[in-house]
């Protein structure tokens, strides 16, 4: 609890940046995979 209160900004920065980058990268990979699958059909 105290750790979270003292480091709230750091935790929020790490989680938000990591999640946003990961979601965008996974999204790009998903769209690429889908396009490849459609062109193969």
């Amino acid at each position: 609890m105290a750790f979270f209160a003292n480091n709230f900004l750091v935790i929020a920065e790490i989680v938000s940046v990591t999640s946003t980058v990961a979601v965008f990268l996974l999204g790009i990979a998903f769209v690429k995979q889908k396009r490849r699958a459609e062109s193969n059909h």
Partner: protein
Amino acid sequence: MNSKVTKRVLVWLFFGMILTAVPITAAAVMSLPKNAGIVDFFELVFNQDLLAVAFTLSAAASADVIFSRESKDGGLLKVGMGSFTMVLAFVSAIGYAIIKSGDERFDPYQTAWGVALLYAASMLCSLVCEALSEL
């Protein structure tokens, strides 16, 4: 661009804006008598209730993308996206609960930036999840 995806993203943006307007309007109205009719921008951003909005948006979007049945391929990537968005939802919920409990002393500057960051990340991730749940 796929019209279904565009429609979904626009509807989600509208939903997010309406949901965000609720705590911000309440905070603005409540700060009026204190500040002699002037709304303090910092007080609006320092609104912890935005964490509840962030939690709602990211949790709903992660469920949408994980359980979407639009396509059979790329299921693992969708689950990955949903999981990362779910992490955002968990941190927002824990932050909201701890800040609201008032047991710990939070630095207002840290809290304001943390809330803004988590809210922005939740909005972006939920938009991406919603768009890809239609593909």
